[in-house]
């Protein structure tokens, strides 16, 4: 009887929604083995991704700043290397030679069209990167950024950094907003902003004039801190980031469609003060939740404890869920890649715990569901990872349906 009442109450306050299984897909990584510039190749990529049991497919839209579709926001004529001699060509076989921006019909529209026709896919959208240069390399610098040195980053001692255009400039945000507009126009059903892929950017690079002016306005007579970890400096830098997130939200609203906006946080740990995301990426995830900028918060890496991998994972998940308190959805990671000790893969967690990888996945799925997550994020589904036995666990996992947040929190801040 109690359970029935609880169910009725849930239905009265918000819709019950299924546990989501999100796959991040970097089509570029399939380029050496599939012809990803063609409809056939994209279909092969998606078939592989669906083996994991993913029901939400987020296709990476850019390599750093280079669009993987016929973007109107970039000068496509000079994206092919080496036509702009300021860009350092990528020399890898195949990947250094793909030209998604030249695909006809438009590559992103094609992918979304294919997703729409796949029975297991409930939602598809954009894995949008915060970075201008992927993986700290100049081959992927976008044309707009190269063309606008006046918006480039500055170090504390005034050195120019061409790897990123600062969000402190409204023109940069307007450009980014135009990108979101054209992605939405191609049919994206979710905008997933990956702030952890930031191309080496951080608040240490953001000593640009608008931020220096803002500092002088807020802290008259106080020298600008050379240590970018200074919370007062981080707060100034973060304003540009929040303006960017608001702009994305406004653009989604202008589309007239119900497209969730999800933002990532990385290297998560139980910590109350400013964390890695603040000093490393330029924003405070708590503020993002408090202000209602987003519909979802995706934790993409966790600083699990080697001695207690799953117990510490659950404590971290509960820490996030406890702060969010249902104000937006939360997503937790099933990550295949082991980039650092502080960002362990599920395989690493399995090793630490002495269990098999499928068992590690099962435990992570259960923890996520127990902590009230809306779903999991697979980071990233590539040709050679997520083997069949691991996929089977993900595919067969059925969490109880949970309640969706009842309001669109971000609409309140516009």
């Amino acid at each position: 009887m109690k359970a029935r009442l609880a169910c009725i109450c849930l239905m009265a306050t918000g819709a019950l929604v299924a546990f989501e299984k999100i796959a991040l897909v970097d089509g570029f990584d399939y380029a050496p083995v599939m012809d990803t510039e063609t409809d056939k190749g994209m279909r092969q990529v998606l078939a592989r991704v669906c083996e994991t049991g993913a029901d939400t497919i987020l296709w990476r839209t850019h390599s750093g700043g280079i669009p993987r579709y016929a973007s109107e926001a970039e000068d496509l004529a000079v994206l092919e290397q080496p036509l702009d001699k300021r860009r350092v060509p990528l020399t890898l076989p195949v990947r250094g030679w793909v030209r998604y921006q030249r695909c006809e019909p438009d590559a992103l529209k094609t992918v979304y069209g294919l997703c729409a026709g796949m029975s297991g896919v409930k939602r598809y959208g954009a894995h949008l990167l915060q970075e201008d240069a992927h993986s700290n390399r100049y081959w992927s610098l976008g044309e707009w950024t190269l063309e606008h040195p006046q918006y480039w980053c500055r170090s504390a001692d005034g050195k120019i950094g061409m790897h990123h255009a600062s969000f402190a400039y409204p023109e940069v945000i307007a450009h980014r907003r135009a990108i979101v507009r054209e992605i939405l126009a191609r049919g994206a059903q979710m905008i997933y902003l990956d702030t952890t892929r930031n191309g080496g950017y951080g608040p240490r690079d953001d000593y640009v004039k608008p931020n220096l002016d803002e500092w002088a306005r807020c802290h008259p007579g106080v020298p600008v801190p050379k240590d970018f970890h200074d919370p007062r400096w981080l707060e100034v830098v973060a304003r540009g980031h929040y303006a960017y997130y608001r702009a994305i939200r406004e653009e989604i609203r202008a589309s007239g469609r119900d497209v969730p906006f999800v933002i990532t946080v990385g290297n998560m740990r139980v910590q109350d003060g400013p964390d890695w995301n603040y000093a490393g990426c330029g924003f405070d995830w708590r503020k993002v939740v408090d202000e209602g900028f987003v519909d979802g918060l995706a934790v993409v890496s966790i600083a699990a404890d080697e001695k207690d991998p799953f117990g510490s994972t659950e404590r971290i998940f509960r820490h996030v869920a406890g702060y969010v308190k249902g104000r937006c959805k939360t997503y937790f990671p099933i990550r295949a890649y082991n980039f650092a000790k502080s960002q362990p893969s599920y395989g690493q967690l399995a090793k630490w715990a002495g269990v098999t990888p499928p068992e590690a996945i099962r435990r992570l799925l259960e923890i996520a569901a127990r902590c009230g997550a809306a779903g999991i994020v697979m980071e990233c589904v590539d040709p050679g990872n997520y083997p069949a036995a691991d996929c089977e666990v993900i595919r067969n996992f059925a969490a109880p349906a949970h309640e969706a947040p009842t309001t669109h929190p971000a609409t309140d801040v516009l």
Partner: protein
Amino acid sequence: MKRAWAVARIFLAATCASSAEAGTRAVSGEVVSAGAEVAICLGEEASLADDGRRLLLQRLERGRFAVFVRDLGTGRETRISPEEGQACFPEWGADGSVLYTFANEAKTGFAARDDQTGWNLWLWKDGVRRQLTQGRQRAYAASFAPNGRTVYFACDRVKVPAAEAADSQAISRVGIAAVALDGGGQRTVCLLPESNTACCEPRVSPDGKLLLRAELAKFREPWRLVVSPIDDIDRRTYLTTLHEAAYAPAWSPDGKLIAYTGFRDGDSGWGVYVMSADGRATRRIAAGRNPSFAPDGRSILYDRDGMVYRREVTR
């Protein structure tokens, strides 16, 4: 030669922005005064022939770049590059030949994975085209040495393939290579030691002694101008600092000035700068990029938003 460079180096060290990491920079000064800007025609990467009457340029045609020679007297244009494919970065040779980069990448990257085609250098003379470099590489931003027999160019395949295959991080690197017109293979001239670095746009000084180029030495740094003795490339003198961005250098015919594309704090965007060859004085003369000196050294051509302009300069 080494002795000559030793003298030059002492001079440069005393006057240039050198390799200092912070603070130092060429001072602004009246290295030249510039006249009014004159629009010439649609195009980019323009340069004048020795006769001063023919203009070499690249231009977008139906979404693809092509190379043309324009007769400034009649306005008549001759297309140098083939109808198919793309061509860019044209340069005059002393004998009226034209050097350019060309590719005809019709296949997808996957379909062309075993091909040996790429962006390679071609030479055009009197309607005849000849391929100078080969392979799946990008050979570009080339120029002739003053002897007219050696071509220097940027190339993303300057390492031997085996070494590159063993180095998974060597995924993004450009060096400078050279090839002789009268035969012989491609040889590496300049390469920075790490990945994600570049040496580009090599320009040999009119006296043949120095190699000027743009370099990108490290992530978080901008393009800088660097000069070295041509027989001792690793002895670098930086002509610009980390507080500005600079690329696309061009010598004046007498070797006393260098024009380049630059950006400094306060600029509204990229601009054409002229500096004395010792780096002591620098002046921004226009909004635009890709400058080249006219053969008489009295004017500079550059482009902005797909239009070629000319501006007189007096010293």
